[in-house]
């Protein structure tokens, strides 16, 4: 009580003297639940400067660098055989990693959200783990495991199997790094939705798969899509871990981010930015899709509420 009085008195002291005797309830109300216009303007400006310095300018640098020498130079850089092979490798890896992580994400979310079992918080923490591990350490782990001086190295060499310095190694480190994305998107969503709808469907005689397909999937659709595009973007852009296990063979084990580094080191700055702009473009498309999804989602919710 005492503190509250204190607070009230502080509040009066801070109030503008011009309106103290006014007594106009509406104005006082507005003063207490809203900020003055000048403060709003200051806050918005500060936020926009921050966004400009950290988000807009880096983006502009990439786009400016990419198109500085015109469209022809851009096309030439992107159509270079090494660039194409890096793009192909990256797409191949994404085509393997994203579906795997999607199945994993849905399975993990189903098990965690629909059932009770001991050790659930530990499992959730473990799923989060790859997110906090430095990409460099991820790469190191697999070199120590699969390198020819590593534990499985001699066995792999004897059977002529290649993991690191080849596509499988890159797939594994990227799958590791992006493992949590879809699961973490779906778990809270499915937990929040509960299991009543599925139970109703099952009680009415539908099978498990049918229930999943017709009841669960529509409910988690947007979250799933969002998780997939985020996972996809991260998988395409992974650098630190891939740099350790790729071996950087030109036209063969260079992913797009590594190829960008190669170009940068060959003083081909326009080309480096041109190829970067591909990934940047993808990032922008990702963000656009995500915004559309959110917008759709809001509209659906509003329609459902109406």
């Amino acid at each position, binding site marked *: 009580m005492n503190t509250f009085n204190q607070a009230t008195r502080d509040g009066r002291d801070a109030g503008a003297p011009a309106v103290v005797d006014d007594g106009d309830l509406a104005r006082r109300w507005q003063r207490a639940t809203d900020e003055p216009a000048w403060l709003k303007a200051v806050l918005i400006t500060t936020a926009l400067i921050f966004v400009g310095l950290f988000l807009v300018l880096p983006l502009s640098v990439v786009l400016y660098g990419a198109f500085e020498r015109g469209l022809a130079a851009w096309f030439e850089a992107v159509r270079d055989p090494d660039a194409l092979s890096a793009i192909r490798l990256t797409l191949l890896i994404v085509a393997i990693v994203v579906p795997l992580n999607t199945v994993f994400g849905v399975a993990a979310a189903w098990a965690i959200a629909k059932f009770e079992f001991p050790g659930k918080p530990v499992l959730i923490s473990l799923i989060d783990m790859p997110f906090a591990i430095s990409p460099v350490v991820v790469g190191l782990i697999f070199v120590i495991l699969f390198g020819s*001086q590593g534990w499985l*190295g001699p066995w792999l060499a004897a059977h002529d199997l290649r993991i690191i*310095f080849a596509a499988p190694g890159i797939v594994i480190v990227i799958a590791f790094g992006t493992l949590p994305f879809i699961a973490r998107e779906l778990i809270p969503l499915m937990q929040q939705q509960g299991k009543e709808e599925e139970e109703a469907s099952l009680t009415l005689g539908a099978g498990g798969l049918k229930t999943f397909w017709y009841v669960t999937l529509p409910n988690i659709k947007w979250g799933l899509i969002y998780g997939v595009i985020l996972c996809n973007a991260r998988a395409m852009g992974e650098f630190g871990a891939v740099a350790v296990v790729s*071996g*950087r*063979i030109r036209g*063969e084990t260079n992913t797009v981010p590594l190829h960008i580094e190669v170009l*940068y*080191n*060959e003083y081909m700055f326009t080309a480096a930015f041109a190829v970067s702009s591909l990934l940047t473009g993808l990032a922008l498309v990702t963000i656009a899709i995500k915004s559309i999804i959110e917008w759709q989602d809001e509209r659906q919710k509003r329609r459902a509420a109406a």
Partner: protein
Amino acid sequence: MNLTTPPTLWSLSRLTASILIGGAVLGATLGVSSQAQAQTERVELLNVSYDPTREFYRAYNQLFAEHWREGHDQEVTVRQSHGGSGSQGRSVIDGIDADVVTLALAYDIDALHDRADLLPEDWQTRLPHNSAPYTSTIVLLVREGNPKNIQGWEDLVREDVEVITPNPKTSGGARWNFLALWGYGLEQFDGDEEQTFDFVRRVFENVPVLDSGARGATNTFVQRRLGDVLLAWENEAILSVEELGRGDFEIVVPAQSILAEPPVAVVDANVERKGTREVAEGYLEYLYSSEAQALAAQHYYRPVDEAVLAEYIDEFPSLDLFTIDEVFGGWREAQTRFFNDGGVFDEILEAINTP
């Protein structure tokens, strides 16, 4: 619904089957025809190399492919991997299946023997000139007009001079830089180790950035305009002047520097397994031909062939060159003493950062 589904499925699977069969037949035909065409055998080599050789090997691989096609009826494709010399050696030890390695210094190839027994200990005697088909040296690259008036190694310790060099721990070129400095110090102070240590320490006090490779350091100096002088391979320095900004930079050749010998070697364990020994050895031997030597000279490496060197002598100023064997007793010794953990370079870092 239930009635219509089975026929649809059935027809679908029939469609799939026919596509599959058709595809298989087509594939088989193509396979046969491509076999028929493949009279010239295809061979692949993997050359694991260090940073500044990118442009040279791109040109040389073409030259070699033409040369090999004539004599052996084989179509050689050479795959390239480039990076810091130490980290490239690490990749080979860890199992990247390099047929040949073309690295910045002999120690990184020695490590292939010491750590993984991939080639014999005497690898360096298998090819002429210590297995180094081209050489280089370490020079100083300064900005246009030499505004800080840097004339030689002694100017690097001045307080108003910022020096750019990569990290000797990860970059081969940086190790040559370090040894060139140390060799100059020994000469200057009549072999006094303590004074030499102090000299090199003062140079490294002027270093604001340690990139992990030679190319990163050049980028820092040229693109980001950081520093007053870049310690660089002669070939990198000329390349920067010629291609990155003609007129923006000048090369200062010190009176004395180190003879840098980037060696090449066949990785025996890998070529045995892959059956590529003949072409791999041919690939390295052809580096000593006059055509390849001229190509090296065009990429600003000093050719070992005297005749070719004479042709390009204008490119390469003469200076007093000392070798690593004369001054440091070879690479193994230099590596252990200067660059391994707890070595002289670590002591210098400690000394600089001890308040």
